[in-house]
């Protein structure tokens, strides 16, 4: 008999305290990472901290995925194999990768860790994902710029689990350059990388694109926060395996509360869809109550047409 569909609710964690809180509210898996190897980690975890977090998560039947999705340059390759060996030894549940070097590295060093494929903007069709599956991935995170129909079509045409982001900001631009520092130097001002910043698009003053720098360069995030709580039935009816919540640039309280809400909403729908319908407005209200004023809620590309 087929196992009943049970989606995995996955949230980012910035530190051990957040790991604990997320587990308390019922998250199924967390993603953490070290910024030398992972992109836009919400907090920098040393290898020791990753080990501690993994042991804790496993004791609490929670999975741990490690963000290892940077676009690697030669220098990182010198320490990456050892890092991966260590991750293998603590039995993390997967590494999130988007650089094809991972396949030659794990083959050369006989490393055995499940690979969750996340090339961000490049995971847009099922033929491509099936290609990467042949190379060894066991799962994939789809691009955020896909409509729900395209997501369903991909899910129906692959034999492995796929994940989508359901809440939080998404990255819309990554440069290796220091594009905030450069501007500050150009206008002869000093810049503190810890300073929260955003850009607005020309005359459209109500836009709000967060921008920040780290060791991987400059990142620009989406204008709105993705919020799919109203549309969970569409996603759950499509049997999507992983539902991801990104807590980047959000307070811990917000992130934990949101994760809890999605947990309740998923459980409500799977036990009784009519209950979900009754509670839906309440879920949304609770999100509005904590949503920062300058951050719109958005359904991203789930219902949007693109031209080209």
């Amino acid at each position, binding site marked *: 008999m087929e196992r009943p569909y049970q989606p995995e609710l996955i949230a980012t964690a910035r530190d051990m305290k957040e790991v604990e809180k997320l587990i308390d509210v019922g998250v199924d898996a967390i993603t953490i990472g070290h910024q030398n190897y992972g992109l836009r980690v919400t907090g920098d975890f040393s290898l020791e901290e990753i080990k501690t977090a993994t042991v804790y998560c496993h004791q609490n039947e929670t999975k741990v995925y490690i963000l290892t999705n940077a676009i690697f*340059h030669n220098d990182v390759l010198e320490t990456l194999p050892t890092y991966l060996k260590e991750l293998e030894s603590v039995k993390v549940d997967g590494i999130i990768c988007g650089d094809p070097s991972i396949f030659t590295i794990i083959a050369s060093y006989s490393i055995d860790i499940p690979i969750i494929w996340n090339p961000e*903007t490049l995971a847009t069709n099922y*033929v491509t994902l099936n290609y990467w599956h042949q190379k060894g991935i066991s799962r994939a995170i789809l691009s955020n710029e896909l409509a729900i129909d395209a997501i369903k079509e*991909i899910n129906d045409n692959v034999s492995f689990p796929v994940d989508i982001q359901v809440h939080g900001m998404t990255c819309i631009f*990554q440069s290796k350059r220091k594009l905030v520092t450069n501007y500050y130097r*150009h206008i002869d001002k000093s810049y503190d990388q810890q300073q929260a910043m955003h850009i607005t698009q020309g005359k459209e003053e109500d836009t709000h694109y967060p921008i920040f720098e780290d060791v991987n360069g400059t990142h620009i995030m989406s204008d709105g926060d993705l919020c799919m709580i109203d549309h969970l039935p569409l996603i759950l009816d499509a049997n999507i395996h992983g539902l991801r919540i990104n807590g980047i640039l959000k307070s811990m309280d917000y992130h934990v509360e949101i994760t809890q809400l999605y947990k309740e909403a998923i459980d409500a729908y799977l036990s009784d869809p009519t209950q979900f319908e009754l509670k839906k407005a309440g879920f949304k209200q609770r999100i509005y109550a904590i949503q920062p004023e300058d951050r719109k809620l958005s359904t991203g590309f789930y219902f949007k047409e*693109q031209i080209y």
Partner: protein
Amino acid sequence: MTDIHSKTKPELLAPAGNLEKLKFAIHYGADAVYIGGKQFGLRSKAGNFSYEDMEEGVAFARKYGAKVYVAANIIAHNENLDGAKEYFKALYEIGIDAVIVADPALITACKEAAPNLEIHISTQASIANWRTVEFWKNEGIPRVVLAREVSLEEIKEMKEKVDIELEAFIHGAMCISYSGRCVLSNHMTARDANRGGCAQSCRWKYDLFEDGTEGSENISAESDESYTMSSQDLSMVEHMPDLLALGVDSLKIEGRMKSIHYVATVVNVYRKIIDTYFEDPDHFELNPEWVDEIWKAAQRSLTTAFYYNEPTEKDQLFGKPARIPKYDFSGLVLEYDETTQIATIQQRNSFGVGDEVEFFGPNFYHFKQTIEEIWDENGESIDRAKHAMMITKVKVDQPLKYYDMMRKRK
């Protein structure tokens, strides 16, 4: 390091937005050109080639011993994959030498439908380390186009560690993001950059705010110059020996949307540099005329991007664009009569008696003169050649050939 004297000349690879540009690029010294077809390419606004154009382009290229590659470098969505196999089969039958692909779905389609059609991995795949290069070699790929973020040091290590053809950009406009990892255009205009719809949002003007507990402070309001992410254009014109010594196999010029004048000028310069270098690598010296020539086609300030150091604010475009003298392509030489020293010139931009013009042709042929007399098709003396594409006769100071060009400073 292998001795530079034993190295073969790298391929000079030029963009060709349409059939005419293909012919000029090859005539001016490109060893290969890359073009776009009607499908699967990233320049939906470039002229792009029908199958008939491709056949003519391939036939022309063959005469000169040049190669023709087709860029099919979109990041496909499910619905874009229809017809991919037929497309690659058709390209192979036309005699296209290679396709430039970024999305593995198109690699799969190409391998199935045209197993003998060579595949190059596009810069859109952001190949930035030698293990990724090795991955593609293991996949049977003969050539990869490197990410624009790699340094010469990194290329050197890739070349030493993996036996595969490397292609690197030497000139032209650049994404300031990792190519393929930018969806600004998708989010701001609903135009999918990775399928050819890029609205160049990185070059727009923005306001930059510091967020505080009391609200946000507009940092860019304090300056005359808006925030932007715009990059200067790449040019390795002054540093070619460094790249040539590395043994990079193909040196690529960006610009399928650029004019004939641009393509001919830029190809001409790099052809001259590569040939001069290989005549005697130990005594190569940069001729300032080559650099001057590059500036006649430049559209933005120029940078070496990531090749030596990480780019800074000096490699970006802020505020008003730099004043770069602009040149018009004023006429194409169709014929030259040695006895009368009169050239037949097809007008491409208005020119007239008294204008200071420069003629140039392949192999860095150049001379300047003032136009003294112009005749129209009926032999009538005229003051100005005002009509687009009109055929004129002009008395010239030095011999010319078909495909030579006449430019004039704006």
